[in-house]
């Protein structure tokens, strides 16, 4: 028998929450915020470090207490590369650029860089986050963010 796996875009109330009802600082919840076109990080309630993507333990002070904080999604390009031989599901896009962006709030986030000519990529250039409108077909179907020129 053929099994069909239908992914459903998660409604907001399906965030993974702890006993007290708080949205837990998980990767899954990060991508649920992406479905709302929001780039969210977590702020350590002990030392104030802003962490994105979220982690279960603060890499600065090892606290496990966080609150979610929305990031503006603006930053500058730290480094990049142009992928010519991609993994299977990205073949149709090659060649494409990926890079690491230092967000204005401090965290460093990797991602694809789109809507820009590859020869115009430059370290230090201003980029901003954007979100794909369609859900990927592949497991785990997290909605993808990407970076584009902010000019």
């Amino acid at each position, binding site marked *: 028998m053929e099994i069909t796996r239908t992914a459903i875009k998660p409604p907001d109330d399906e965030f993974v929450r702890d006993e007290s009802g708080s949205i837990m600082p998980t*990767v899954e919840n990060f*991508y649920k915020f992406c479905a709302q076109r929001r780039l969210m990080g977590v702020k350590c309630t002990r030392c104030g470090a802003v962490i994105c*993507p979220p982690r279960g333990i603060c*890499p600065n002070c090892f606290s496990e207490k966080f609150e979610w904080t929305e990031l503006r999604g603006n930053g500058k390009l*730290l*480094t*990049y*590369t*142009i*992928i*010519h*031989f*991609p*993994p*299977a*599901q*990205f*073949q149709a*896009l090659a*060649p*494409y650029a*990926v*890079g*690491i962006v230092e967000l204005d709030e401090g965290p*460093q*986030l*990797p*991602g*694809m860089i789109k809507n820009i000519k590859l020869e115009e990529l430059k*370290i230090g250039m201003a980029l901003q986050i954007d979100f794909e409108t369609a859900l990927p077909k592949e497991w785990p179907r*997290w909605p*993808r963010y*990407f970076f584009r020129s902010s000019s």
Partner: protein
Amino acid sequence: MTHLSTTGVTEILAMASDFPFEQWHGISFPGIFGMMAVDHMHRYGTTEEQLALVAVKNHDHGAMNPKAHFQKRITVQDVLSSHPVAWPLKLYDCCPRTDGASCLVLTSPEVARKFTDTPVHIIGSGQAQDTLSLFGRESFSTMKVTKLAAQQAYGMARLGPKDIDVAELHDCFTIAEIIAYEDLGFCGPGEGGKLVQDGQTRIGGRIPCNTSGGLKAKGHPVGATGIAQAYEIYLQLTNQAGRRQVSAAEIGLTENVGGAASTGVVHVYGRGD
């Protein structure tokens, strides 16, 4: 590993990286080292020609190793004109996927004496961990794991980089060998490109590196690579390396990294005779 297609191997090797933020966004394993290379080039002025020279040197060495995967010399032009994989890394900047096996007999110095008059001693050993993924690190043009593991291994051996006569390095991509020179202290930060350009890491140079041909030409049978590095140092320190023998090699070193330099191991070896 050679039974898989390029796409298949790309997928499998990517599993050594961060799934939700690297693999999920199309960042291949060569892509991670491509980003290190771009950062190194931007920060220090390292050139694509200098990257190519690592491959050329390792193929020259591999051509003298009857057990190497590639025993054919290549030119800088061959590297520069090869197909881009993850720019600035091209096909000849990347090690091949290789089938292979390696082994060593590890025992105490006393027991070793019963089997051989020419044992090689491990006189320093270090291991370190970093983040799985590249993006959270303070620097993309250095490998903290290699620095930390080298500190431990040099400390245990009571030796330093100037004492090393021959080294096998983890040149999964050409940029990784240049960064390893710097992290092991064979040159200063940012000077790795110049070190290879000046021929200092060739056989006959100040610090011959990857006399086996390295991962680039000897080959990279992933799980067997670390021991194969130790094997080459064993040959060098026991004067059995044939045409690629480094004269009067007394102290050797191996440097191995796992993932995107998420884990690193450095060993220092001395002659036991």
